[in-house]
């Protein structure tokens, strides 16, 4: 199982936390597509607190956190 935590505006119309069944080769790009989140809405994609490329494979049991960009002053 992979736990995906969404933050801020990414929660709109979605749950705060979503579980994904693990399969070999599952990656960030697949998860974003399943959640209907365009890549350009993602600022930080963390796997167990580490910055990951969307193409890197994710392991069973990993916890993912996805944040949109905040840039105002």
């Amino acid at each position, binding site marked *: 199982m992979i736990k995906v935590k969404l933050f*801020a505006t990414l929660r709109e119309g979605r749950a705060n936390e979503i579980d994904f069944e693990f399969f070999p080769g599952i990656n960030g790009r697949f998860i974003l597509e399943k959640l209907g989140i365009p890549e350009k809405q993602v*600022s930080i994609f963390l796997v167990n*607190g*580490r910055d990951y490329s969307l193409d890197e494979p994710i392991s069973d049991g990993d916890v993912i956190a996805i944040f*949109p*960009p905040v*840039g*105002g*002053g």
Partner: protein
Amino acid sequence: MIEKKYLRNFKMLSLEEQERLKKTKVLVAGCGGLGGYVVEMLARLGIGWITVVDDEAFEETNLNRQLFSTVNTLGKKKALVAKERILEVNPDVVVNPILTRIEEKNAKEVVAGHEVVVDALDSIPHRILLEKVCEELKIPLIHGAIAGWYGQVTTVLPGDRTLSIVYKHHKEGIEKELGTPSFSPAVVAGIQVCEVLKIILNKGELLSKKLLYIDLLNQEYQKIELHF
């Protein structure tokens, strides 16, 4: 003897620490929503020298959140208004207004000589430039950003390069859709000033390689440990 105006800083600050603040130069980049609150709080703490960098003048759309914007300051340069305001609050503080935008060509010259820099800008490319220059000059950078109900703070020590990672795909954030209300800049600015103080006094735990992501809609505060 502690000066009477700083009596309520005592004993959170010792007499020596209060004296230390007087000898400190802090640069605040941007004097809008975040920057106004940051400058005000630094001055009331007793920071001796505050350089305020901003080339804009106040306009009506600033009134919902920018502390130094009033009907009387509309049309006036933000950095000059900051100086006038701080003269009324704490005339012992030197406010050095610089009416420019930090760009590649002037950044090093503007930033050099300060002990801490505060990122209160509203443009992601300029924030990344500031991070680069602070790293070159080995100056800690306290970053804050807001969008609607949300905000974030991180302390970038030279070499951390946190902003280059956090903003690697983006030139603008969700604030373009969500706007910027009165309360989120105040919250984020308060946390930024607290980080400035801890750096100067070398105490407490900093948000270095950690991003504090603030969700005021749900009152959730995530301190994300970043391992880049």
